[in-house]
Structures are given as C-alpha cells and as structure tokens.
C-alpha cells in the first residue's frame, strides 16, 4: 500500500559518471545539439520559434472539437507539437488556418475563429507539411447573448486589473472607489459603480459621499471612462485608451442607461480551465494560453481574451494580453489567470538548456518519483547521493535536533551494511532524543507558553512518545474540555486569560488547516475568497469557550458537574447579528451537539477535508527541507499554490492511509533519495532553489545551535530561571530545546532568534544580525565554553592528543566528518603558528563553531 514497505530500490549510482561536470559542460558548449543537426531556428524576433519538421512529432490542434453558441461566439485554437527533446512548442503563429466552409465562420491568422451562421464546419491548420483538423459546431447565431453586468462590465474591470487587491479590489478600495476582489460580487460592484458611496469595514452600509461613477446624461463624462483612459488623473495610470474595445464597451453600457441586465438568465462562471496547466519553455520562446470558462447552467466559452493574466515573476515569465506567455530567463514562475472571482494557475518552468540525454535517475519511493519527474521535465539533473557523513549529520539534526558524538560518527562511517541508512533512521525514530526534539517542534506548532507549559507539554510529549495518531491529537486539542493537557492552549501567554473565540478559531485553523483566516476577521480576505461570513461562522463553534472557575477548571465544562455558564455569544461585527456555527465550506454541523467543537474537530480531521493532512505533512516537510511545499507553511490558499502539488497530495494521502502516523511520514521523507541528495552543484541545478535538485543549507534554530555548541565544547549551558517565577537555575543538563522561552532568559537564544511573543503563533527569525556577529566574535557562549577547564579542548590537550588527532576529533564533533587532507595540513600549520598550542586549539574550535558548515544543516 505505501511505498516504504516495499523493498527499497537503491538509487542508481551509475548516473554519477554522467553527472561529472565535464560531461555537461561539454554539452553546453556545443553550439547546436549534435543529435538533431537539422534543428534550426528562425531568428526573426517576432516569429517566436520555428523548427524544421524533422525534430517535431505529435502535432495537434487544440481544441479538437468545440461547440459555439450565440452571435459572434469565438474560439482560439492552438497548434502544438513536441520537439525531439520532449518540449512542447507552440506553432500557432506559423500555421495557416482555413475552413471547410467560409460562410459559417471566419478565422484569423492567429487561430481565432468567429461564428457567423449555424452549422458544422471543419477548421484546418497546416504547418510543416502537416494538416490538422478540428470540428466546430455552431448554434444560435441568430440570438444575441443577453447583456449581463457581471460578464460584460465586471469582465472589463478584471481584465484591466481594476479590481485587483492593490487597486479598487483592496479591502477599502482605492481613491474612494471600491470593487469586489476580482469581481467576486458583481451585485456590490454594480452598487459602487452606479450609486457610489464609501465602503465601511465595520458596517454593511455605505458612507457618504454618494457620487456615481457613471454619468447617464453625458456618458462620455463618466468617471468610469475618464479615469482609466487617463483623461482625469488616475492613481492606477492608464488602463485602456479612449475608443479601445473596453472603452467602447463601457460607454455603450452607460449610454443604455447602465442596467444591471437580466440577472436571471445571467451566466455565472462556475470554474475556469486553462491549457496548458504547465509549460516548460526555453528562454526567448513564446506560447499562448487557452482559457475556458464553464457556466453554472452548462456550456462553456473561450475566455482567453477576457481574463486577467499575472506573472508571479515577470523577470522569468512575461504575459501579454490575450495570454501570450514569453519566457525570459531560466527559473520558475506561475501565471495566475483570473476572471469572475475565479483563479487558475499555470506553472511555468523556463529551462536553461534542454539536455539531449537526460541521465537515468532512479527514485527510492513515491516522493522521488514525483520530485525527480518534475526535475526531468525541467531538464535539471539532481545532485548525487550525499556522503555518509553528510547524511548522518543531516538526519540526526532533522530527526533528533542533536549532533552525533564522534564515536557514533566513526562507527557509522565504518559500517559496511548497505542498509545502514535505513537502520540509522529506525534507530533515531525510536530514540528518546526524537521525542525531546519533536516535543520542542510541536511546542512551536501548537503554541506552548509558560502559563500552560506543564500539563500541555506533557500531553504533547506523551502523544509523541506513544506515537498517537495525529488526527487523534488534533481532535483532543480542538474539542478539548475541562482541565486536561490539550485544553491549555486556550490560555493566553501573558495574562492567562482564555483566548477570545475568534482568536482561538484563527489559531486552530492556522495550526490544523494551514489557513490564515485572520484577515477575514475585519473584512473579506484581501487576496483570497475567504469572507467575513465564513470567518464568523467557524468562530461560532468557539462561542461557548469560557473559563468557569479560576485556575482550577479552565474550559467550558459540559459534564454537568458545574452549572453551565452561558458562554460568550459570537456576534458578526458588520451584520451585528449572532452567528450560528458553520464550516468553512459553508455546510452546517449535523446536529447542535452539546459541545460544538466536537463536530468541528470531526470536520477538521475528516479524510474529506483536504487541508488537514496537507497542513501537517507540509509542516513536517519544512522540518526536513527548510521550506514547506507551501510556504509560508500556514498560508494555504489558491493564490499561494504548492511548489509540488502532486507531491503534497501524495504525501497527505500516504499519511492518511498510514493511519496519521507521524513516524511513518518522517520515515518516508528521510528514506527518500530527495532527502538524501548531496548539496553538490552541476551546471543544471546551479540556480535551482525550489525543485529539490540538491540539498540546500538551512540555519540551525537558536536552541539547536546552542545545544550543539554545548556538545562540541563539552560544556553544558547553565540556564537561569526568571525572578518573575521564582528565580534560580534550571537543573544541570537541561537542554535549550527543553526550555519554556518566556521564563528562561538567555542572551544567546535571544540573539539567535527564539520565538518569544507567544500570544500568536510563534515564528522564528533566521536572519543574520549584527548582534549575532558581535556575539560570535566576543560573546561569552563561544569564548567561555571553548576555553573552559574540563571542556573538550582542555580534555584533548591534557590527554596528550597530537595536533592531528585534535583536528580530527573536533571535526568529528562539530561537522560529523573527517577533515580533508588539505584542511588537516593547513590547520595543523595554523596551530603551530599560534602564540601557544592551547590558543591555537581554542582558535581552531572557534573557527569550527563559527563556520557556516557548523551553523547550518546541509
């Protein structure tokens, strides 16, 4: 069922010779690929790309059949082929189009077909000596499509970017003119446009002044026309020219009295589809997107010329009106396609240079299948397998937050068992350090604070030690009542108050679904489709959240032992009405149970809820790779898609089928070839930072770093306890990852960015700072520990170790590897040149601890 149970396929090492830098460099230096000598290019700048027929195959005309309905209905067609290297190329501009019957339709050179009369007609495209055909059925050309404000006017707004989140679609609009984001609410847009008024965050009523954007008496003088045509100053600049098609469309609408149109027969777009969903291109090439809208009442229409296109990285991918995508330089970008409040995305990869021979890269499990497949499509060759020492250090840090001691490193490097990595992973998964480390991690995920730390952290620790299924952990936390461990997250860090229902809801939705709803508290979400109604609907599940006795029972007690106090009611701030619980998808809980949060917990953890498993596998993934597949890890939304959506779904599915077993998930990740790649560069992966083509360095967290320094120097850190909670010190041997941040002041941890503000979800700051640099140079953590009597340095010296032995021992302790011969020679020479031997060895220890290799996991 799940891949890890199968015998592990060994990563094919034979690909390594292929990856020798010389091989690829040589390939790159050739002016034209030797395999396809006939492949040539048309160098004229505007013609895009053209290849002679020899290298091309799989010619196709898309769509191959279509039905058009209504007067002047139109459809764009694409001519595509696959070149010898497997890249899809767009030949639409090079194709000659013709029709079997010119009376029924007309076709333009770029493949745009417009219906004239009812009937069936065949479209022919000729390119490179091939002839392709598509069947077109035309109906209802005698009926003009009824006018609809949503489609005809709001479409103009969307296409021109007027209702984007940085313009009038922003929370409060712009320049006093508000539109719904990407046209999601045409009724409101109609009101703002025709009646005017100023949007108010906390009231459904519009405020003065009410000045319409249309002028029915002198239509040309409407601000709706003057501003975007820049005949009046406009903060958004010129959106269209006077007398352009969009200008005329708006003008005609105003001339007809600015009607809303027939709302009944109005066609609402239910979903958008774009072709292709993914485009792999070479720099300098172009291709066209095809966007189809599907209507609620059935039927579809080509919207390629009606929608808004936005590139996530215009330096990589540029999109012109009408959906012409141009690849500029190697990299990744997404094209967002928006219409009628709907969004679809195209993933674009611009490759540096297609590889004529992509080497065989075998995967070990389903993770690799998906990651390596994507790399192959992008013509990026992954790095080879990491060395044993690199793997050892990496996996020890990622599974246990702890560096392996020198003797373990020696042992592992000397082990000849081909399955030693798998054995190591099992050993780490079952170690006490694993439980310590993941308790620390979950203290971040689940917001452990001083006021709740004791019982709450014990509950987390015990859940992890027992390997409690994650969905059960989630249910216990979301539905928790009474006085037990999992209810303590309802407590605020500083004041000890119970969080307000909407705060608690916002946190649970972030933690368990990876969604940031917080913006929708005050207004509909500015970038996404979360509305204020959804926010308050789900908040209502927490309406009974209350503290019924001071300090002894924190939560609503539904056991009947206590008089049930009436919890705070949840009131919608704009509608000023009490809100009944409803789930984010708008559905209602099956029954009004005594504890509505139980129903919420069931809904959240249900296998049908796609967010639940994805949110946690994404967080766990981020632990192993430094970045989530969705990043930030708690910001799942259509506008922020996963880097590898199929992988995210596959991991979530595997996690679900594996019984929500966190160790099972981590095992699959740690065993994957993707995780075990080296950090080595080759000409194809040099610029890649998102496709997992090599291991990237990640800075150790403050706590992990401090524990590592203590281990390498052999000097434990003594942690003080704040006077506020009685003072004194933590017991000897306490590790930084075991601390409760608010009550254990530590200069080192603060300088390196521990999360301390814990009334909201803790976030960690990995940025370098001046204070870190100062502390590294002269701070006590480094200077004192290195020089301390009884520490590793002094022990090595008094044991009479040679310089060479000392260099090796310190390397093993800090970097989990032996020094290279060059390093060994150089460092021994430096020790000899030092003012004293002791000073030399101390300085070596400092050099190791200060190194990026030490400070980062890589």
């Amino acid at each position, binding site marked *: 069922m799940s891949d890890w149970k199968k015998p592990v396929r060994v990563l094919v090492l034979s690909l390594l010779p292929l990856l020798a830098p010389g091989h690829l460099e040589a390939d790159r230096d050739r002016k034209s690929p030797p395999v396809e000598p006939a492949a040539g290019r048309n160098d004229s700048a505007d013609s895009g790309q053209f290849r002679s027929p020899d290298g091309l195959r799989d010619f196709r005309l898309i769509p191959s059949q279509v039905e058009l309905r209504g007067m002047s209905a139109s459809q764009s067609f694409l001519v595509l082929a696959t070149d010898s290297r497997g890249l899809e190329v767009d030949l639409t501009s090079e194709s000659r189009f013709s029709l079997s019957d010119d009376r029924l339709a007309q076709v333009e050179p770029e493949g745009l077909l417009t219906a004239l009369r009812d009937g069936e007609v065949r479209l022919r495209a000729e390119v490179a000596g091939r002839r392709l055909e598509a069947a077109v059925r035309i109906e209802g050309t005698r009926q003009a499509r009824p006018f609809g404000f949503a489609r005809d006017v709001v479409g103009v707004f969307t296409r021109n970017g007027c209702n984007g989140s940085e313009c009038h679609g922003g929370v409060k609009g712009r320049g006093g003119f508000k539109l719904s984001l990407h046209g999601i609410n045409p009724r409101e847009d109609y009101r703002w446009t025709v009646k005017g008024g100023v949007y108010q965050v906390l009231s459904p009523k519009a405020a003065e002044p009410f000045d319409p954007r249309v002028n029915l008496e002198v239509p040309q003088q409407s601000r709706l026309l003057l501003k975007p045509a820049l005949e009046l100053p406009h903060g958004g600049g010129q959106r269209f020219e006077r007398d352009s098609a969009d200008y005329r469309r708006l003008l005609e609408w105003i001339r007809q009295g600015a009607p809303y149109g027939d709302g009944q027969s109005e066609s609402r777009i239910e979903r958008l589809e774009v072709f292709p969903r993914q485009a792999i291109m070479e720099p300098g090439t172009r291709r066209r997107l095809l966007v189809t809208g599907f209507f609620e009442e059935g039927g579809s229409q080509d919207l390629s010329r009606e929608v808004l296109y936005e590139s996530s990285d215009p330096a990589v991918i540029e999109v012109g009106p009408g959906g012409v995508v141009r690849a500029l330089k190697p990299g990744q970008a997404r094209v967002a396609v928006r219409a009628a409040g709907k969004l679809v995305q195209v993933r674009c990869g611009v490759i540096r240079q297609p590889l004529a021979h992509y080497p065989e890269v075998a995967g070990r499990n389903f993770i690799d299948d998906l990651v390596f497949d994507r790399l192959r499509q992008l013509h990026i060759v992954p790095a080879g397998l990491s060395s044993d020492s690199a793997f050892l250090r990496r996996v020890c840090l990622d599974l246990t937050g702890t560096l392996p001691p020198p003797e373990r490193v020696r042992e592992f490097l000397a082990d000849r068992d081909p399955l030693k990595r798998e054995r190591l992973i099992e050993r780490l998964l079952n170690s006490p350090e694993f439980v310590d480390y993941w308790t620390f991690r979950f203290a971040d995920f689940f917001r452990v604070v001083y006021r709740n730390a004791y019982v709450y952290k014990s509950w987390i620790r015990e859940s992890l030690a027992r390997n409690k299924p994650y969905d059960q952990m989630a249910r216990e936390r979301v539905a928790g009542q009474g006085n037990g461990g999992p209810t303590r997250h309802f407590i605020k860090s500083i004041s000890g108050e119970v969080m307000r229902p909407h705060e608690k809801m916002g946190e649970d939705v972030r933690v368990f679904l990876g969604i940031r709803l*917080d913006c929708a508290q005050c207004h509909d979400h500015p970038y996404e489709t979360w509305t204020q109604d959804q926010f308050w609907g789900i908040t209502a599940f927490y309406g009974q959240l209350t503290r019924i006795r001071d300090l002894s029972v924190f939560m609503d007690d539904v056991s009947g032992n206590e008089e049930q106090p009436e919890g705070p009611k949840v009131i919608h701030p704009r509608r000023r009405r009490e809100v009944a619980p409803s789930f984010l998808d708008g559905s209602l809980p099956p029954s009004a149970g005594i504890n509505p949060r139980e129903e919420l917990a069931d809904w959240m953890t249900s296998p049908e809820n796609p967010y639940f498993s994805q949110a946690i596998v994404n967080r766990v993934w981020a632990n192993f790779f430094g970045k989530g597949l969705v990043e930030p890890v708690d910001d799942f939304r259509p506008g922020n898609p996963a880097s590898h959506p199929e992988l995210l779904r596959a991991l979530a599915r595997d996690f679900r089928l594996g019984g929500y077993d966190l160790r099972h998930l981590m095992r699959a990740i740690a065993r994957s070839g993707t995780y075990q790649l080296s950090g080595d560069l080759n000409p194809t992966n040099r610029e890649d930072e998102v496709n997992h083509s090599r291991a990237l360095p990640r800075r150790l967290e403050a706590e992990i770093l401090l524990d590592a320094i203590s281990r390498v120097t052999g000097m434990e850190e003594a942690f003080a306890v704040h006077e506020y909670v009685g003072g004194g010190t933590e017991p000897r041997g306490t590790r930084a990852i075991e601390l409760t941040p608010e009550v254990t002041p530590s200069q080192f941890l603060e300088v390196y960015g521990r999360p301390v503000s814990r009334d909201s979800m803790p976030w960690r700051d990995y940025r370098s700072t001046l204070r870190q640099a100062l502390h590294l140079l002269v701070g006590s953590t480094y*200077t004192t520990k290195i020089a301390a009597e009884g520490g590793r340095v002094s022990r090595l010296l008094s044991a009479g170790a040679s310089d060479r032995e000392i260099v090796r021992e310190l390397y093993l302790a800090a970097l989990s590897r032996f020094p290279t011969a060059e390093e060994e020679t150089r460092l021994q020479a430096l020790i000899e040149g030092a003012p004293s031997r002791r000073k030399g060895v101390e300085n070596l220890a400092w050099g190791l601890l200060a190194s990026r290799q030490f400070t980062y996991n890589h």
Partner: protein
Amino acid sequence: MNGYADQLACCRPRREFLRVGALSLLGLNLRQYLALEAATPAAARSKQKAQACILLWLEGGPSQIDTWDPKPHSRFNAIPTRADGIRISEIFPRIAGHMDKLAIVRSMHTEENNHPQGTHYALTGHRPNPALKFPSLGSIISRELGPRNNLPPYIMVPEHQETDFFSYMDAYTSAFLGSEYDPIILPDPNREAFQIPDLSLPDTLTAADIADRRSFLQAVDRGFRQKEKHAEFGRMDRFTNQALTMLLSPRVKQAFDLSQESDRTKEAYGRTRVGQSVLLARRLVEAGCRFVTTSGYAHGAWDTHKDNDQRLRDKLAPTLDQTLSVLLEDLQQRGLLDSTVVLAMGEFGRTPHLNANNGRDHYPDCWSLILGGGGIQGGRVVGASDDQGAQVAERRVTMGDLFATIYKAMGIDWTKEYVNPGGRPLYIANSIDDVMGQPLHELV
C-alpha cells in the same frame, strides 16, 4: 520556514521604485553605503533637517489633565510657562521653563486601550494583528536615514525588567524591514557594573587573537563557501565586518561609555535608571544613532490605577521634570537641539475622572504629549480637548499625524508606503482606518 527575509524585496514604496533608499535594493553593502553617504555632502541631503530622535517612553500612559492639558478638576494647579499663554501642571516646574522649546499636542486620539496593544499602536501606528507584523517608528527612521558613523541606528535603553516584555517586543521591531533595523537593546546604565554585552573585547582576547581565529575559520569554511552562495552568508559577512569595526573603533566604544561623562553631568540627569538612560541616549545620538528609545521607569509606573496624584507628585513627575529639562539644556549647549527631535509620550492617556482608588484608568480617546527640537516649533499648542479633558474638541491628531510630523522634521518622505511580504501596502505614517497621516503644519 526561511523565506521571511527572502521576501524583503517586497518592501518598497509603491509607485516609487526608483526612489528607494533601501540598502538592499540598491545592492549596496553597508560599507559602500557609508562611503556613498560620506561622499554626498551632508548638507545636500538634509540641511537643517533633524538627524536623530530621542523618545522618552512614559510606559503605562500618563494622565493628560495632570500633565500637559491641565483642567480645573485635576488636583494640581496649572502654572504659566516660558511660552506665552501656555499653562501646564505645577508638577513640572523645570519643564515649564523650557516650554519655548516644546510643543504640546492636546488632541491625540488613538484606538487601543490596553498596554501591549497600546504600545504596539503607539510605536508602529497599527493595531496588532496576529497575521501581520508592522515595523516600529525607530526601525522606519533607521531604514529611511541609514546608519551614521558605524553606530547601530536604533537603540533601546534600558531593557524592560519584567517578563511581560515579551508581549511588547512586536512593538519595537523592524518586522519585515530587516534585522539591521531592529533595536539594539542595552542593559540598565545605572547599574554599578554597567557593560554593554558583546561590545568590547574580553580580557582574554586581543585584536590579534580575533584575526588569528578568522584565519582558522577561513581554512575550515573555504570549500563550503566556494560551493554555497547563500544570500544569508553574505549578509553575515557584512555584519561581521561591521561588528569588527565597532569592536575596534574607539569612537563606537566611547559612544557607549558613560564613564566619560563627568560626575556633575551624571548627577544632573539623576542617578536613576531613567536619568542614566537619557544621558546615554544623548551620547548615542551625539555619536550617530538615529533613534533611541529610553524608558527606565518601573514596569507600568505611569499606569496609575491607584493613587494617581501621589505617584505623579512624588515620583514620576520629578523624574521626568529633571531628565527632560536637563536633556534639553544639554542638547542645546552642545548644539544638538536643532538636529534632535525629542518626544515624550506613553501609549495612551488616562481617564479624566478619578476611580475609587484615587487612580485613573486607561484612556485613548483624547490625550496629550510633548515634543520639540529638530526644527519643531516650540511654544505651540496643537488641538484642544473639551472642558473635561475627555474628548477632542479641536483638531483630532492621530499617531499617523505624529509620525508624519517627525518624518517631515527628519527629511523623510512621510507619504511613503511599504509593501509587506504578503503584498499588503502600509503607510509609514499610518492613521486611523489605514489612511495616510499628515504632518502638523503648525509645528514643521
């Protein structure tokens, strides 16, 4: 998990792509930036503009009717001041003598009613939000003006004493602007063994040792650094160079060295946490800091829910009266008053009527603050409260207006917007309902 700083490029003024002053966007490192700054005649950039700002942070929120907006129902009398027609509470006799240098705003109107949120609001111009981080005034000024003379641009002295500080931290940080604009937080300078951590070489370490250590580091990391071109590595290199300059530069060290002040000066400021912090602030500003937040009052000292009058009369007012007056005199004597904005405020005001404990409670609707120096017109009053000191009667002033005033005094474009990593635009002078603040034209 990473990624926060990677999105820094989002932080740009809208519609002003070419006018950014940010180091990172210009692709300059600090040294290049400083060289550039040195090459630009200081006068060309900012003649007669304030170079620095000192915030006297009255943590807890002082009572407006007992300080700068005296009312008949205050237990304190109003006294005339050096500025014609301006009267303040009798508990500030020395400040009264400096009112020609200071302006009073009597119509501050803000939106948060509790300390952590109020502090966040007063120091960032935004209500706290679990989904968003906002840069503080000190961080914004540091970023817009950049560092001077190798000094960290933004310093806070002293650190808070209580653990509660953690819930306030968001009010002081650079948020998405970059860690170089976070405050450097210093310990209590009034302590016997006052020493800035990590700002001087320990006895066991010489400059030569550091050089020696760095050659070990280079030998260890050479191979790795050749392979990895992580952006953060380069940033850390720059900070390391800056740190070395600071550690080895006598000028930087002296800026923090209070022992260089005479006993007379120390006495004049007062041998208290507050007094010595304000004195240190003056030294730092003189040496090149852009923004210093000084406090030093006990946690919640101005939070007079109980015994308001007594606490003001016996403790709080005398301390503020002394330190602010001496600071103004000292700055003037050193020719720094025209280039240094001085601002004294808390996170809100207090209820105009006494509660059952003879105290006053939190009150953001209408309150007062004072500011001066840095070219800000002294001897003026902006706005007015009603008879009770309860509501704004004239010219509501918001935090955004106050920020805009300070920016204008410092030659910063107050109309600027940043865009946070999530794409949300933020005015650097943010007023109620996310509109742009306006400078107080009476003052700048």
